[in-house]
């Protein structure tokens, strides 16, 4: 594209939603001549770049750059495009690519945040370091919000911890959304041998309908969970014992997993075993009392936290009554002061809870003395004895929890 072409492109797009080729090449991280060659080779079948470069065309160019960096030849890329394996979608998500760009220095000046703080922030969010040299107006807006929060008196380190949680949670959400489209839209179309044009059309159609729904749903769920945790916080303030250190919270922690899961995987295969884990996690999630929640899952193991030790123990015993088929769950519960950081719970008591669960057999609920102390009289606790748990210097007294009168 020469100067006249670029002028024509700008005239045809007065709204500024496309860029001239030279700028598009810069945004994509490729030379102008390479970009022109790729167009001539037909690597942008979906895009009419003669009228300027829109966000999805630039996004496609960036994807091609990444694939070239990973060693794919132009011929392989052409083949993949012809087969519909490389299909860009969700134009609105990449719309910012044609907007104003900022270097780190410019972003610092525009937001009022120091460059080194922006660097810390980007690292905490978990974006690649390259993001620092390609910032958009919305990034600058985010830096301004951060600056406002710091100015209002929040400790910077505490804010960075929260931002780290945002980054981890949101990246997980985005990953799940893209996998949803990949597994349930793109892959089936490829398997059915649908033409690349039809794939592009279908992907565009479905994602245009689906993707705009994600943000409002996340927004809504965020508010719902905020409400839930504000309530929990209030209950916690009323019920917490004094004496804990600042930054620590008293919670009951349960670890639950499926006994014999490794053997089960050998017997039924990965797919079926994964389905069993999915149902187990869903059953835990659906049946937990209001004050408890799954903090994380690691394979077939779930970590549950609750402000109410008694109801968590009740749940565990009741859950075992309702689980009468192999593979049976095993559950360990402990209660104590833990450090809350980056949306997670840390410390000796958490490790102890994990070790207690590891000692439980299939169908059992094993607990420590602080849990027994808080439990209701409708439960019975059989003393197992003092057990030397791995990694702990002192033996821990363990109890087997069950319904009263049934042992």
């Amino acid at each position, binding site marked *: 594209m020469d100067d006249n072409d670029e002028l024509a492109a700008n005239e045809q797009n007065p709204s500024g939603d496309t860029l001239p080729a030279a700028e598009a090449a810069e945004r994509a991280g490729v030379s102008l001549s390479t970009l022109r060659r790729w167009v001539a080779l037909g690597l942008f079948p979906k895009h009419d770049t003669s009228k300027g470069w829109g966000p999805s065309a630039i996004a496609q160019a960036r994807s091609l750059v990444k694939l070239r960096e990973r060693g794919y030849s132009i011929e392989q890329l052409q083949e993949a495009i012809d087969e519909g394996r490389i299909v860009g979608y969700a134009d609105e998500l990449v719309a910012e690519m044609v907007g104003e760009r900022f270097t780190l220095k410019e972003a610092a000046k525009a937001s009022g945040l120091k460059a080194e703080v922006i660097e810390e922030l980007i690292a905490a969010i978990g974006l690649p370091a390259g993001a620092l040299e390609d910032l958009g107006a919305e990034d600058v807006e985010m830096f301004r919000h951060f600056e406002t929060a710091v100015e209002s008196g929040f400790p910077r380190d505490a804010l960075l911890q929260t931002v780290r949680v945002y980054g981890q949670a949101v990246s997980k959400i985005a990953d799940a959304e893209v996998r949803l489209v990949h597994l349930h839209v793109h892959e089936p179309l490829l398997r059915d041998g649908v033409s690349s044009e039809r794939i592009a059309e279908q992907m565009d159609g479905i994602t245009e309908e689906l993707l705009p729904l994600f943000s409002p749903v996340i927004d809504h769920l965020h508010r719902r969970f905020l409400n839930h945790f504000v309530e929990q916080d209030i209950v916690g303030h009323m019920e917490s014992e004094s004496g804990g250190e600042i930054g620590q919270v008293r919670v009951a922690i349960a670890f639950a997993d499926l006994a014999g899961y490794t053997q089960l995987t050998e017997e039924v295969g990965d797919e079926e075993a994964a389905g069993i884990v999915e149902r187990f996690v869903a*059953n835990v999630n659906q049946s937990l009392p209001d004050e408890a929640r799954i903090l994380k899952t690691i394979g077939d193991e779930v970590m549950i936290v609750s402000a109410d030790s008694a109801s968590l*123990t009740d749940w565990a015993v*009741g859950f075992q*009554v309702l689980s009468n088929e192999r593979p049976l769950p095993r559950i360990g519960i402990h209660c104590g002061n833990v450090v809350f950081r980056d949306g997670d719970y840390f410390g000796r008591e958490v490790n102890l809870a994990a070790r207690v669960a590891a000692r439980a057999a299939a169908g059992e609920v094993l607990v420590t003395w602080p849990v027994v102390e808080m439990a209701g009289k409708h439960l019975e606790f059989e003393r197992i004895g003092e057990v030397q748990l791995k990694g702990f210097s002192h033996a821990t007294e363990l109890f087997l929890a069950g319904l009263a009168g049934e042992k």
Partner: protein
Amino acid sequence: MTAQFESTEQFRAVIDRAMTLMSEDPDMGPKLRDADVPQRYEFDDMDLVVNARAARQGEQGNLYWEWTDDVDWEPKVKLTMSSEVANSYFQGKENVPVAIARRRIKAGGDVKSALALIPITKPVYGLYRSMLESDYPQLVV
């Protein structure tokens, strides 16, 4: 807070309404029918038993139930509770595993199926509550 039913007849009428809500709900009804888990509920303080199963071909709705043990099918899940717990459960105020541990609900049979029914029946909480607010406000807990 507890709420008492005025009579066995009132309790039966309210539970009939709850079952109808589940059976006719476009989301819950077909799911319960597909789950195909015959259930027996015993309400010990009322001396009542209701047996429910997926509707068979030609039967109206997605669920079919009878207030007797004299039925031509075998229940898969058996749950025993008081009328107060049942009322509380249908309002989403009774966590099933916790209630089992506290002996408010006794579970028998293929109890794992009971666990699978929990998420399916959750939408009934709001519908049941609305029904109580409109017709039986004294039973709202």
